[in-house]
């Protein structure tokens, strides 16, 4: 109501015209409506999620009082309710986001409840991974028919869980490759959403869930060559970081840019274990295994490297080298270090230098962009590097102590200077 009073005052004083006042009123009314709608969608999905999960838990009780035939009939009840809601939504409430998201969420979970009840009644063989695989396969079309974001998110969570069950457990499971097919199956939906509304709020979740799922599941591809698999992760994080810095995502808030956060953080974190000499000793022992060059891991590494190079070339069109985040180009330098590391122990020193350079460049970027977060992120990288070296016994206590003092002083100085700079600008 406050704005109405202000607008009246401004129109009375002839600061703005009546027409402008009306436009402002309409703008805020629309915005309020949008917020209300968003809230309705969020609570609708939350409600459907809780009810759906509740049904699954009730089903998991395994009701022995009921006959087998009664239990099998009950298996279809949640499914039927979910389908009726989805049917009503599709043909009567197609424009209501809250109806679409809640009914799709409920049906998604009802499918799980239904197959889990049948599995219990007949003690059907199979572990959690085969159960999740069946569930996700049946639920996949829901994403496209209902055009539901919530269903897409539940699906990504489901297939990631499946990948962990099938790929990281001890059992030999021929199913683990299914994850990649299932992930590809959700890509068209993702692309459609990006094309139709690139700045949409709901996309924030997909921008996090999708890359996170990839990071979690990529390790399932690793079988025999642990050390060289590090490169795969370095390249994946590089791809993510560059993708997040491309114009289509860069304009979003950092918190909404899962690719950038995961990519930048991931590629730096990956380098830390490599700053210890033991990693390189293993690498030098392993690389003579000729089987490595024909393995799926090796081919995947090359493909990811080429993708990262292509993305970097795209990024170069919108950013100069000195404006780029270190996580965008770091993979190129690291590839050279890795190749040297196959033969020479000097790679460990080079990795440390690369990490130091990453920290320093990030600090400078933060100062240049007047971004305190980025500046401190750079300082944290340097601090972490110093802490890692703290555990290396071959450095003298005096040197280690001095390093800590210098970095600590750097923290104070950099933040102080930045805040002073801001104050001068404000004046």
């Amino acid at each position: 109501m406050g704005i109405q009073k202000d607008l009246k005052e401004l129109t009375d004083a002839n600061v703005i015209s009546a027409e402008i006042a009306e436009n402002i009123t309409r703008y805020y009314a629309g915005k309020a409506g949008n917020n209300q709608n968003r809230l309705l969608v969020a609570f609708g999905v939350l409600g459907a999620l809780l009810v759906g999960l509740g049904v699954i838990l009730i089903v998991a009780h395994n009701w022995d009082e009921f006959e087998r035939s009664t239990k099998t009939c009950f298996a279809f009840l949640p499914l039927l309710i979910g389908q009726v809601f989805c049917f009503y939504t599709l043909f009567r409430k197609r424009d209501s986001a809250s109806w679409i998201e809640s009914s799709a969420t409920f049906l998604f979970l009802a499918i799980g409840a239904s197959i889990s009840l049948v599995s219990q009644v007949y003690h059907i063989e199979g572990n959690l991974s085969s159960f999740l695989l069946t569930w996700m396969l049946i639920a996949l079309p829901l994403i496209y028919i209902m055009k539901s974001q919530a269903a897409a998110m539940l699906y990504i969570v489901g297939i990631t869980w499946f990948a962990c069950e099938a790929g990281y457990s001890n059992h030999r499971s021929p199913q683990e490759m299914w994850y990649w097919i299932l992930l590809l199956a959700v890509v068209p939906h993702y692309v459609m959403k990006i094309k139709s509304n690139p700045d949409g709020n709901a996309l924030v979740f997909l921008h996090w869930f999708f890359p996170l799922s990839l990071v979690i599941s990529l390790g399932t591809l690793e079988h025999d060559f642990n050390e060289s698999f590090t490169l795969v992760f370095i390249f994946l994080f590089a791809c993510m970081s560059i993708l997040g810095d491309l114009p289509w995502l860069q304009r979003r808030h950092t918190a909404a840019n899962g690719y950038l956060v995961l990519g930048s953080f991931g590629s730096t974190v990956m380098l830390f274990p490599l700053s210890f000499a033991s990693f390189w000793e293993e690498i030098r022992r392993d690389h003579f295994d000729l089987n490595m060059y024909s393995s799926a891991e090796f081919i995947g590494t090359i493909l990811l490297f080429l993708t990262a190079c292509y993305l970097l070339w795209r990024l170069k069109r919108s950013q100069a080298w000195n404006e780029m985040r270190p996580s965008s180009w770091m993979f190129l330098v690291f590839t050279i270090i890795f190749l040297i590391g196959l033969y020479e122990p000097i790679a460990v020193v080079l990795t440390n230098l690369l990490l130091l350079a990453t920290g320093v460049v990030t600090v400078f970027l933060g100062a240049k962009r007047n971004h305190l977060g980025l500046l401190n992120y750079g300082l944290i990288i340097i601090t972490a590097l110093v802490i890692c070296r703290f555990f290396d016994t071959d450095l003298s206590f005096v040197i280690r102590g001095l390093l800590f003092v210098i970095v600590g002083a750097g923290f104070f100085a950099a933040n102080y200077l930045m805040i002073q700079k801001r104050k001068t600008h404000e004046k």
Partner: protein
Amino acid sequence: MKNKKILWIAFAAVVLVQWYVPASMIFEREHIIKYGKEWKFNTEPVDPNDVFRGKYIQLRFSDSDVKNTLDTIPEDTHELYIRLVEDTNGFAIPSEVFLENPGNGEDILRVNIPYWGGSINKLVDGVEEERVTFDYPFERFYMEEGKAGPAETAYNERRVDTLSQTWAVVSILNGNAVLSDVMIDGKSVTELSDE
């Protein structure tokens, strides 16, 4: 209008698939129970749980290896077929192993190979023999929450008594199996946990 029609058909197809999958699971199992042969397998139950499907008894089987008569087991093999015979006490024991289904029937069962390959050497009647170990495709018996625990206790109590016997009742047809009950000394484990 055309779009609506396509949506209608697509939705109907999705509904059909969502019904077909659980329904086919039910029909397939009912068929095995009705037309398959019922076998008894010696077991050792314990009590874990599954996030979605609740409490179950994990069954372990005494006779889960068979003499290896195969030349080689290809590395990407995940399933094998075994032929079952009944011992003098009426319990099922594996007698032969096959890479492919040797022909449908009530005595052929599809089993899973463990991740480590399944080949072991074992002393049988004092002679070392190469054998194939496998996992039966019915190792979980789902029970009502609260009953699986007492069922395990009932099992443990009876295990002290060497004359006591636990077994799983399984219907088998054309390589597929449906577990219908777990018995301790002739009594269903569900009834025992009620006592």
